[in-house]
Protein backbone atom coordinates (compact mmCIF):
# COMPACT_ATOMS: atom_id res chain seq x y z
CA UNK A 1 0.00 0.00 0.00
CA UNK A 2 0.96 3.61 -0.34
CA UNK A 3 1.29 6.19 2.43
CA UNK A 4 1.21 9.93 1.75
CA UNK A 5 3.17 11.94 4.31
CA UNK A 6 2.09 15.57 4.22
CA UNK A 7 4.94 18.06 4.56
CA UNK A 8 4.19 21.54 5.86
CA UNK A 9 6.89 24.17 6.27
CA UNK A 10 7.92 23.41 9.84
CA UNK A 11 6.98 19.73 9.87
CA UNK A 12 9.83 17.87 11.57
CA UNK A 13 8.55 14.32 12.03
CA UNK A 14 7.78 13.81 8.35
CA UNK A 15 10.95 11.78 7.88
CA UNK A 16 10.20 9.67 10.96
CA UNK A 17 6.79 8.83 9.52
CA UNK A 18 8.26 8.12 6.09
CA UNK A 19 10.99 5.95 7.63
CA UNK A 20 8.48 3.91 9.62
CA UNK A 21 6.22 3.34 6.62
CA UNK A 22 8.90 2.85 3.98
CA UNK A 23 11.83 1.22 5.74
CA UNK A 24 10.35 -0.47 8.79
CA UNK A 25 7.11 -1.66 7.21
CA UNK A 26 8.45 -1.90 3.67
CA UNK A 27 5.45 -0.10 2.19
CA UNK A 28 5.41 2.55 -0.49
CA UNK A 29 5.54 6.09 0.89
CA UNK A 30 5.65 9.53 -0.69
CA UNK A 31 6.16 13.01 0.65
CA UNK A 32 3.42 15.43 -0.39
CA UNK A 33 4.23 19.14 -0.15
CA UNK A 34 1.52 21.25 1.44
CA UNK A 35 1.08 23.32 -1.73
CA UNK A 36 0.41 20.25 -3.85
CA UNK A 37 -3.15 19.42 -4.77
CA UNK A 38 -2.81 15.67 -5.23
CA UNK A 39 -2.37 12.88 -2.72
CA UNK A 40 -0.80 10.78 -5.49
CA UNK A 41 -3.39 8.03 -5.16
CA UNK A 42 -2.23 7.12 -1.68
CA UNK A 43 -4.19 4.61 0.40
CA UNK A 44 -3.58 6.39 3.71
CA UNK A 45 -2.56 9.89 4.76
CA UNK A 46 -0.18 10.72 7.61
CA UNK A 47 -0.15 14.25 9.03
CA UNK A 48 3.18 14.38 10.85
CA UNK A 49 4.39 16.17 13.94
CA UNK A 50 6.32 19.39 14.02
CA UNK A 51 5.44 23.07 13.94
CA UNK A 52 3.54 23.61 10.70
CA UNK A 53 3.91 27.23 9.59
CA UNK A 54 5.78 27.88 12.82
CA UNK A 55 2.54 27.31 14.74
CA UNK A 56 1.98 31.05 14.25
CA UNK A 57 -1.30 32.32 15.67
CA UNK A 58 -2.23 28.89 17.11
CA UNK A 59 -0.92 25.38 16.56
CA UNK A 60 -2.28 24.13 13.24
CA UNK A 61 -4.21 27.34 12.58
CA UNK A 62 -2.43 28.34 9.38
CA UNK A 63 -1.81 24.79 8.10
CA UNK A 64 -5.56 24.42 7.68
CA UNK A 65 -5.34 26.84 4.73
CA UNK A 66 -2.65 24.88 2.89
CA UNK A 67 -3.97 23.72 -0.50
CA UNK A 68 -3.36 20.04 0.25
CA UNK A 69 -5.79 20.20 3.17
CA UNK A 70 -8.70 20.46 0.70
CA UNK A 71 -7.57 17.11 -0.69
CA UNK A 72 -7.10 15.64 2.78
CA UNK A 73 -10.66 16.71 3.62
CA UNK A 74 -12.01 15.15 0.44
CA UNK A 75 -10.04 11.96 1.12
CA UNK A 76 -11.35 11.82 4.70
CA UNK A 77 -14.94 12.45 3.62
CA UNK A 78 -14.63 9.61 1.12
CA UNK A 79 -13.68 7.33 4.01
CA UNK A 80 -9.91 7.25 3.49
CA UNK A 81 -7.76 6.52 6.56
CA UNK A 82 -6.05 9.63 7.94
CA UNK A 83 -3.71 9.65 10.94
CA UNK A 84 -2.75 12.91 12.65
CA UNK A 85 0.27 12.73 14.93
CA UNK A 86 0.97 15.51 17.45
CA UNK A 87 1.02 18.66 15.31
CA UNK A 88 -1.01 16.65 12.78
CA UNK A 89 -3.66 16.23 15.50
CA UNK A 90 -3.63 19.98 16.08
CA UNK A 91 -4.03 20.61 12.33
CA UNK A 92 -7.02 18.23 12.17
CA UNK A 93 -8.65 20.06 15.09
CA UNK A 94 -8.18 23.46 13.46
CA UNK A 95 -9.41 22.08 10.13
CA UNK A 96 -12.59 20.89 11.83
CA UNK A 97 -12.01 17.24 10.92
CA UNK A 98 -12.02 16.43 14.64
CA UNK A 99 -13.80 18.30 17.46
CA UNK A 100 -12.15 20.27 20.26
CA UNK A 101 -8.93 22.22 20.67
CA UNK A 102 -5.54 22.06 22.35
CA UNK A 103 -4.55 24.25 25.28
CA UNK A 104 -1.07 24.77 26.68
CA UNK A 105 0.00 21.87 28.86
CA UNK A 106 -1.36 22.30 32.35
CA UNK A 107 2.16 22.66 33.81
CA UNK A 108 3.14 25.11 30.99
CA UNK A 109 6.13 22.93 30.13
CA UNK A 110 7.10 21.19 26.92
CA UNK A 111 6.71 17.51 27.85
CA UNK A 112 9.19 15.16 26.23
CA UNK A 113 9.06 11.61 27.62
CA UNK A 114 7.75 8.12 27.07
CA UNK A 115 4.19 7.62 28.28
CA UNK A 116 1.71 4.77 28.36
CA UNK A 117 -1.52 4.96 26.43
CA UNK A 118 -4.34 2.47 26.45
CA UNK A 119 -6.08 1.48 23.23
CA UNK A 120 -9.76 1.97 24.01
CA UNK A 121 -11.28 0.78 20.74
CA UNK A 122 -9.99 -1.38 17.95
CA UNK A 123 -12.58 -0.59 15.27
CA UNK A 124 -10.52 2.07 13.50
CA UNK A 125 -8.11 1.55 10.61
CA UNK A 126 -5.18 2.45 12.88
CA UNK A 127 -6.04 0.20 15.84
CA UNK A 128 -7.54 -2.84 14.11
CA UNK A 129 -4.49 -5.00 14.93
CA UNK A 130 -4.47 -3.92 18.59
CA UNK A 131 -6.09 -5.70 21.47
CA UNK A 132 -8.77 -3.79 23.30
CA UNK A 133 -7.17 -2.30 26.40
CA UNK A 134 -3.66 -2.89 25.06
CA UNK A 135 -1.05 -0.61 26.58
CA UNK A 136 1.45 1.08 24.28
CA UNK A 137 4.63 2.77 25.45
CA UNK A 138 5.28 5.64 23.07
CA UNK A 139 6.89 9.05 23.38
CA UNK A 140 5.25 12.43 23.60
CA UNK A 141 6.91 15.73 22.71
CA UNK A 142 4.59 18.70 22.89
CA UNK A 143 3.84 21.95 24.67
CA UNK A 144 0.20 22.16 23.65
CA UNK A 145 -1.42 18.78 24.06
CA UNK A 146 -3.94 19.62 26.75
CA UNK A 147 -7.06 18.45 24.95
CA UNK A 148 -10.17 20.50 25.61
CA UNK A 149 -13.75 20.44 24.40
CA UNK A 150 -17.03 21.60 25.89
CA UNK A 151 -18.41 19.06 28.39
CA UNK A 152 -21.28 18.03 26.09
CA UNK A 153 -18.80 17.45 23.25
CA UNK A 154 -16.63 15.28 25.49
CA UNK A 155 -19.71 13.36 26.57
CA UNK A 156 -20.59 12.81 22.92
CA UNK A 157 -17.07 11.55 22.20
CA UNK A 158 -17.26 9.09 25.07
CA UNK A 159 -20.75 7.94 24.12
CA UNK A 160 -19.74 7.59 20.47
CA UNK A 161 -16.68 5.52 21.50
CA UNK A 162 -14.49 8.11 19.77
CA UNK A 163 -11.83 8.31 22.50
CA UNK A 164 -9.31 5.88 21.02
CA UNK A 165 -6.27 6.45 23.24
CA UNK A 166 -6.07 7.43 26.91
CA UNK A 167 -3.03 8.22 29.06
CA UNK A 168 -2.61 5.52 31.69
CA UNK A 169 -0.09 4.35 34.28
CA UNK A 170 2.20 1.43 33.47
CA UNK A 171 -0.42 -0.72 35.20
CA UNK A 172 -3.10 0.60 32.86
CA UNK A 173 -4.94 2.84 35.32
CA UNK A 174 -6.46 6.14 34.21
CA UNK A 175 -5.18 8.53 36.88
CA UNK A 176 -4.32 12.25 37.08
CA UNK A 177 -0.65 11.28 37.59
CA UNK A 178 -0.63 9.41 34.28
CA UNK A 179 -1.93 12.50 32.48
CA UNK A 180 1.11 14.44 31.19
CA UNK A 181 -0.68 17.57 29.99
CA UNK A 182 -4.05 17.99 31.68
CA UNK A 183 -6.18 16.62 28.84
CA UNK A 184 -9.83 16.17 29.78
CA UNK A 185 -10.58 12.53 30.68
CA UNK A 186 -6.89 11.67 30.00
CA UNK A 187 -7.65 11.82 26.27
CA UNK A 188 -4.53 11.13 24.18
CA UNK A 189 -6.25 10.37 20.88
CA UNK A 190 -9.58 10.52 19.10
CA UNK A 191 -11.37 9.48 15.96
CA UNK A 192 -14.16 11.11 13.98
CA UNK A 193 -17.72 9.74 13.83
CA UNK A 194 -16.94 7.70 10.72
CA UNK A 195 -13.86 6.37 12.56
CA UNK A 196 -11.53 6.77 9.56
CA UNK A 197 -9.79 9.92 10.85
CA UNK A 198 -7.67 9.14 13.91
CA UNK A 199 -5.28 11.44 15.75
CA UNK A 200 -3.11 11.29 18.85
CA UNK A 201 -0.55 13.47 20.59
CA UNK A 202 2.00 10.68 21.24
CA UNK A 203 4.35 9.70 18.41
CA UNK A 204 3.83 6.08 17.30
CA UNK A 205 6.13 6.66 14.31
CA UNK A 206 9.00 7.30 16.74
CA UNK A 207 8.40 3.98 18.47
CA UNK A 208 8.65 1.53 15.60
CA UNK A 209 12.03 -0.07 16.31
CA UNK A 210 13.53 -1.44 19.52
CA UNK A 211 16.71 0.47 18.69
CA UNK A 212 14.89 3.69 19.65
CA UNK A 213 13.53 2.31 22.90
CA UNK A 214 10.12 0.99 21.91
CA UNK A 215 8.42 -0.64 18.95
CA UNK A 216 4.94 -0.32 20.43
CA UNK A 217 3.87 2.29 17.88
CA UNK A 218 4.36 0.06 14.88
CA UNK A 219 1.00 -1.66 15.43
CA UNK A 220 -0.82 1.53 14.37
CA UNK A 221 0.80 1.52 10.95
CA UNK A 222 0.53 -2.26 10.65
CA UNK A 223 -3.17 -1.89 11.40
CA UNK A 224 -3.76 0.46 8.51
CA UNK A 225 -1.81 -1.81 6.17
CA UNK A 226 -4.10 -4.68 7.19
CA UNK A 227 -7.20 -2.48 6.94
CA UNK A 228 -6.33 -1.27 3.46
CA UNK A 229 -5.49 -4.84 2.39
CA UNK A 230 -8.91 -5.99 3.61
CA UNK A 231 -10.48 -3.11 1.70
CA UNK A 232 -12.08 -1.94 4.90
CA UNK A 233 -11.41 1.70 4.18
CA UNK A 234 -11.12 1.89 0.41
CA UNK A 235 -11.66 5.33 -1.04
CA UNK A 236 -12.24 4.11 -4.60
Amino acid at each position, binding site marked *: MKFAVIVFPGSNCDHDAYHAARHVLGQEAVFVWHKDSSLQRADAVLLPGGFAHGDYLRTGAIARFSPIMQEVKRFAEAGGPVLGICNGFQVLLEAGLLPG*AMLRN*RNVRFQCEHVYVKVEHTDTPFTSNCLQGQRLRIPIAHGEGNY*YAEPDVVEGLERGRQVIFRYVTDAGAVTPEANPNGSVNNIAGLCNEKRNVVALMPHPERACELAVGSADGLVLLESVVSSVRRGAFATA
Partner: protein
Amino acid sequence: MRARVFVTLKTSVFDPQGTTVAEALHTLGYAAVKDVRQGKYFELDIDVRTPDEARRVASEAADKLLANPVIESYRIEVDAGAPEPVR
Protein backbone atom coordinates in the same frame (compact mmCIF):
# COMPACT_ATOMS: atom_id res chain seq x y z
CA MET B 1 -9.79 52.51 9.82
CA ARG B 2 -8.09 50.67 12.63
CA ALA B 3 -9.72 47.77 14.46
CA ARG B 4 -8.21 46.26 17.57
CA VAL B 5 -9.08 42.67 18.32
CA PHE B 6 -8.47 41.24 21.80
CA VAL B 7 -8.55 37.45 21.97
CA THR B 8 -8.59 35.61 25.30
CA LEU B 9 -9.42 32.13 26.46
CA LYS B 10 -13.06 31.79 27.46
CA THR B 11 -13.62 32.21 31.19
CA SER B 12 -14.78 28.58 31.34
CA VAL B 13 -11.40 27.42 29.98
CA PHE B 14 -8.40 26.96 32.27
CA ASP B 15 -5.58 29.34 31.28
CA PRO B 16 -2.24 27.74 32.29
CA GLN B 17 -0.19 30.70 31.06
CA GLY B 18 -2.31 33.28 32.86
CA THR B 19 -2.15 31.22 36.05
CA THR B 20 1.64 31.00 35.80
CA VAL B 21 1.93 34.75 35.27
CA ALA B 22 -0.34 35.36 38.27
CA GLU B 23 1.89 33.13 40.41
CA ALA B 24 4.97 35.06 39.24
CA LEU B 25 3.28 38.34 40.18
CA HIS B 26 2.48 36.95 43.61
CA THR B 27 6.15 36.05 43.99
CA LEU B 28 6.97 39.68 43.21
CA GLY B 29 4.66 40.74 46.04
CA TYR B 30 1.57 41.75 44.06
CA ALA B 31 -0.84 39.91 46.30
CA ALA B 32 -3.64 42.22 45.14
CA VAL B 33 -3.57 40.67 41.66
CA LYS B 34 -6.21 37.99 42.02
CA ASP B 35 -6.28 36.59 38.51
CA VAL B 36 -4.52 36.96 35.16
CA ARG B 37 -5.92 35.99 31.78
CA GLN B 38 -3.41 35.93 28.96
CA GLY B 39 -4.43 36.57 25.38
CA LYS B 40 -3.54 37.93 21.98
CA TYR B 41 -3.87 41.41 20.53
CA PHE B 42 -4.29 42.25 16.84
CA GLU B 43 -4.35 45.63 15.08
CA LEU B 44 -6.07 45.47 11.74
CA ASP B 45 -5.64 48.34 9.27
CA ILE B 46 -8.81 48.12 7.23
CA ASP B 47 -9.57 50.13 4.09
CA VAL B 48 -13.29 50.80 4.57
CA ARG B 49 -15.40 53.95 5.00
CA THR B 50 -17.27 53.48 8.26
CA PRO B 51 -16.53 52.12 11.73
CA ASP B 52 -19.43 49.72 11.31
CA GLU B 53 -17.84 48.22 8.21
CA ALA B 54 -14.49 47.96 9.99
CA ARG B 55 -16.17 46.20 12.88
CA ARG B 56 -17.91 43.80 10.50
CA VAL B 57 -14.63 42.91 8.74
CA ALA B 58 -12.74 42.50 12.03
CA SER B 59 -15.50 40.37 13.46
CA GLU B 60 -15.45 38.09 10.40
CA ALA B 61 -11.67 37.85 10.61
CA ALA B 62 -11.88 36.92 14.29
CA ASP B 63 -14.57 34.29 13.64
CA LYS B 64 -12.71 32.70 10.76
CA LEU B 65 -9.11 32.93 11.88
CA LEU B 66 -7.96 35.14 14.75
CA ALA B 67 -9.85 33.26 17.46
CA ASN B 68 -10.66 29.59 17.88
CA PRO B 69 -14.32 29.58 18.97
CA VAL B 70 -13.85 26.28 20.83
CA ILE B 71 -11.62 27.86 23.46
CA GLU B 72 -11.41 31.60 22.82
CA SER B 73 -13.61 34.66 22.82
CA TYR B 74 -12.80 38.11 21.47
CA ARG B 75 -13.64 41.77 21.82
CA ILE B 76 -13.27 44.45 19.13
CA GLU B 77 -12.57 48.18 19.37
CA VAL B 78 -12.64 50.44 16.32
CA ASP B 79 -10.80 53.76 15.91
CA ALA B 80 -13.02 56.09 13.93
CA GLY B 81 -10.12 58.46 13.23
CA ALA B 82 -9.00 59.39 9.72
CA PRO B 83 -7.24 56.50 7.98
CA GLU B 84 -3.51 56.84 7.68
CA PRO B 85 -2.25 57.62 4.16
CA VAL B 86 -1.22 54.61 2.14
CA ARG B 87 2.51 54.49 1.60
